[in-house]
């Protein structure tokens, strides 16, 4: 692996003792870990381990019963989606959550909604500031379109795009918000090898060029081991391991969670 342009820095987000229950179901139990600036952190674990719940807690979609989240030095018991988005957390979803009736361009433009402020009167007239704002954001969205190499599908309604491209558009929408922390929920699920390679390249480029901190959930172990700086392993809602890919690979508990134990 090549040397990264940016060094991994201080803690960006810290999760402390988070527990989340749905009725009697314990999705997360006393989970603590931290995400450091400019790193690629992978959260792995078997199905139902609570990985997606963890992301949902981080960006405020689920509200944990216990624990605290410290983001950019500010400690909160729970995040709210709007506050999370406002403070620079963007995410993609496991099942693509694009706006199907809108074009690729419009979908990515929605990623910049929080940065647009013109009121509706100016917009209705499409005068000076509204027009200028629209064009400025269009230019930065075009930058993302170039980066993700999706120029040709700019005007296509996303409902018509193949799965791999939809995933890419969704990444584009998250990137349009210029996030400090990017949460990717299984960005490579259901893709073929070429699409996975493309996606890995984009993730590493985002991390490298924009310095975006990335937390991702992924099932493909070769991908996880290759691109992540650190790995957190969840099993049955508990954290069982946390460390570099090599450490995690050698951890007996992780092996047990994935492969089971030998009963004699």
């Amino acid at each position, binding site marked *: 692996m090549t040397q990264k342009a940016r060094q991994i820095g201080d803690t960006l987000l810290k999760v402390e003792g988070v527990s989340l229950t749905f009725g009697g179901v314990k999705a997360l139990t006393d989970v603590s870990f931290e995400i450091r600036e400019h790193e690629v952190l992978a959260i792995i674990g078997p199905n139902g381990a609570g990985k997606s719940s963890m992301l949902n807690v981080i960006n405020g979609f689920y509200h944990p019963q216990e624990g605290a989240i410290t983001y950019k030095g500010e400690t909160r018991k729970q995040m709210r989606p709007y506050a999370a988005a406002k403070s620079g957390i963007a995410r993609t979803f496991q099942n693509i959550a*694009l706006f199907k009736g809108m074009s690729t361009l419009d979908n990515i433009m929605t990623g910049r909604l929080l940065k647009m402020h013109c009121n509706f009167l100016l917009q209705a007239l499409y005068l000076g500031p509204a027009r200028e704002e629209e064009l400025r954001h269009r230019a930065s969205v075009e930058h993302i379109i170039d980066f993700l190499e999706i120029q040709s599908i700019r005007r296509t309604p996303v409902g018509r795009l193949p799965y791999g491209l939809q995933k890419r558009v969704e990444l584009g929408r998250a990137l349009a918000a210029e996030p400090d922390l990017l949460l990717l929920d299984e960005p490579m699920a259901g893709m073929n090898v070429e699409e996975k390679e493309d996606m890995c390249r984009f993730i590493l480029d985002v991390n490298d060029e924009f310095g975006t901190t990335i937390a991702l959930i992924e099932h493909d172990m070769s991908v996880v081991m290759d691109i992540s700086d650190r790995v957190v392993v969840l099993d049955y809602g508990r954290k069982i391991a946390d460390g570099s890919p090599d450490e995690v690979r050698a951890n007996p508990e992780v092996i047990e969670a994935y492969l089971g134990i030998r009963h004699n």
Partner: protein
Amino acid sequence: MIYREAGQFKTSYGADQMIFPILQDRIFVILAVVAAYLVPLIANEYWLQAVLIPFLILSLAAIGLNLLTGYAGQLSLGTGGFMAVGGYMTYKITTAFPDLNVLIAVLLAGLIAALVGLVFGIPSLRIKGFYLAVATLAAQFFILWLFNKVGWFVNYSPSGTITAPPRTLLGIMVTGPEATAPVRYLIVLTFLAFFALAAKNLVRGRIGRSWMAIRDMDIAAEIIGIRPYQTKLLAFAISSFYCGVAGGLYVFCYLGSAETEAFDIALSFSVLFMIIIGGLGSILGSILGAAFITMVPIFLTNAPPLIGLSMPIDLQKHIEVMLFGSLIVFFLIVEPRGIARLWQIAKEKFRLWPFPY
């Protein structure tokens, strides 16, 4: 062969963001608007009064409902109620301040309708889809009940009717019994042209995108930082403003005098049918849908005598209703996304004609 966009290159995002990026479209739209303004020169009183004026006013209401239902995805059956607010409030304002320009009274009434819409939009955070539609029925019935019940709204007129008083604009009579049809037509047309453009600008910018995001997937919209409550309420307010303005014009430029029956649930439904047939999520579709719903019955009434067929009037009426119904079914089967979509497909075909690809 004429409809080609070859050679029309865009060199700036500004040029690319135009409403009609293709030159031929721009020419066509300008010609259409100019032609619409010249119509009073050739159309007779009947056409203006019975066909074109209601068509234009209902187009405005349909645009309003389309903003709410087609773009923001909030089904509403309160259109008639919001239009009633516009009509009755215009009446109250213009009778309380006779010197105020009546068109300003219409706009102010639209603002009041927007506030009312805001209130009735509050349940939308909790209820979705058909359930929300039923909740908006409350607006429809409550508003009409209120106007019937409280004499203040009709200035205690014993008949409960509001009548458009004569008002002038630049010395020309624009409302009341003496206002001529061409004048009222031009006023309504100007309102529609301006507000259609404003609606188009809204839906292609930040607000339109946040509405569509809420419509297509509200959870994802929330995650990217759209606040569902504010966004939905804004949709209700702006939509009700359009309906209110349309309601004001409906009384002052079309009916002349009205009771609450003019705004009953049938009106709400017919505006809803306009946007479904015209095309949900399309400004052009709202206008095409309004044209379909208002003009097809008139065409069906006038067509048999034109081809020399005479039949009893009641039979003719029944056939008209049947034909109208089957036309609606036909359109929805052929293109569920409305006439606007058909128009788009036709344009795409025409672009390539005579080649298949």
